[in-house]
């Protein structure tokens, strides 16, 4: 194809997206669209999968059967989210194995938030409330993104997220209405998860490189800073109901804008975590790679069994 022909196809393609038409896997698409989607969707999938680890840490120690059942269901949902996204991503021509390879070798990133440790039960509350809360804000606009399989996966994910956030908030509520020690535990969890949750919504607009193209392709509908503001504005009143204090002395309602002004985010910390130097990066990757490698014999055995059954069937027929 000549450059002119490609340029023409690109124009038609962009116009389709501008008209709110969906792009399906077998449609022609610019190479950059394919690559950007593979990157974003696989990293989104990796985040769901690695995101199971900090919470999986507490399943066996949940304080009641009710909490245990809920946490187990939530973590199972996150596995499901990872699987929806991996299979949506595979429609673009990358294999599941390649994606795992990229995750396990550190070539692909996942959300920085999952590199923080979960040290008390209250962290299960804070994660559901704040981390899933921030994830919802990020994901809802993606239900209308231009790539069909991604949009459909997001619709399913978003339906399931609301339970995640509510069960987390309920944990916080229970702790805040409990003993002073329990309330202190909830406050401590908020103190540790607040800033990482704000960072989770991504670098400030000034430093965000992909935004303009992503807006065009509806991979993004609001900027990181807008999403962050939305998150803060909806979360502060929820903290008030819990009777907890947001760990930001500069947080203040601004009558003029109708939003909360907030303090400086420590972006150095964010970049450190992204580059692999967060408190739990190594631990997460070790657990993930370990699970994959130690599960190899199970995958092989299942495949060997399937092949044996297939042969038996063929024998019967012949």
């Amino acid at each position, binding site marked *: 194809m000549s450059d002119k022909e490609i340029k023409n196809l690109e124009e038609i393609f962009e116009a389709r997206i501008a008209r709110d038409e969906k792009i*399906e896997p*077998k*449609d*022609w698409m610019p190479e950059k669209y394919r690559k950007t989607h593979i990157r974003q969707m696989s990293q989104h999938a990796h985040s769901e999968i690695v995101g199971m680890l900090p919470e999986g840490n507490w399943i066996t120690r949940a304080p009641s059967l009710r909490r245990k059942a809920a946490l187990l*269901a939530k973590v*199972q*949902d996150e596995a*499901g989210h990872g*699987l*929806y996204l991996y*299979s*949506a991503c*595979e429609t673009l021509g990358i*294999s*599941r*194995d390649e994606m795992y390879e990229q995750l396990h070798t550190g070539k692909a990133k996942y959300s920085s938030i999952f590199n923080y440790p979960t040290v008390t039960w209250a962290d299960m509350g804070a994660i559901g409330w704040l981390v899933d809360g921030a994830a919802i804000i990020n994901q809802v606009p993606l239900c209308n993104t231009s790539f069909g399989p991604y949009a*459909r*996966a997001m619709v399913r994910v978003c339906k*399931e997220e609301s339970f995640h956030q509510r069960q987390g908030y309920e944990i916080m509520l229970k702790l805040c209405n409990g003993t002073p020690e329990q309330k202190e535990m909830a406050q401590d969890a908020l103190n540790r998860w607040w800033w990482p949750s704000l960072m989770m919504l991504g670098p400030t607009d000034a430093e965000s490189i992909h935004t303009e193209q992503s807006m065009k392709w509806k991979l993004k509908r609001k900027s990181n800073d807008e999403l962050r503001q939305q998150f803060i504005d909806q979360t502060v009143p929820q903290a008030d109901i819990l009777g907890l204090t947001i760990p930001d002395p500069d947080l203040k309602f601004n009558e003029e804008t109708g939003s909360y002004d907030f303090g400086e985010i420590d972006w150095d910390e964010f970049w450190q975590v992204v580059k692999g130097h967060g408190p739990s990066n190594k631990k997460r990757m070790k657990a993930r790679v370990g699970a994959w490698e130690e599960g*190899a014999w199970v*995958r*092989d055995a*299942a*495949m*060997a*069994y*399937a092949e044996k*059954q*297939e042969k038996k069937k063929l024998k019967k027929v012949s």
Partner: protein
Amino acid sequence: MNQDFLVLCLESGSVAVLIQKHTNMSKNWPLWEIFVRSKNGLEHRHFGSLHAADADMALENARDVYTRRSEGVSIWVVESKNITASNPEHNGELFEPAQDKVYRHPTFYDLPDEVKHM
């Protein structure tokens, strides 16, 4: 593969077995397309795909991945390689012939307003 291990195998003459084993090991679970009927009276609809060693496992995995909240009463699984899909680049010759056949639609026919129930 570990080099010493390979040499050891060559020496013991079991290389054929080893190669056989190695090819088995690198075989990945195939991809399956999942179709779910959400309730009786509705058709099966494509829900997504997943990897599984065989059809039975694909059904079980589909139950866990796509129907955790009673989204279905029946599941079909089809190995993805068995699906033949039309090519969107040929949409013209495939679908355009239907476009100029307006006489296939009821509104094409002129009837007086007095005619009821038609």
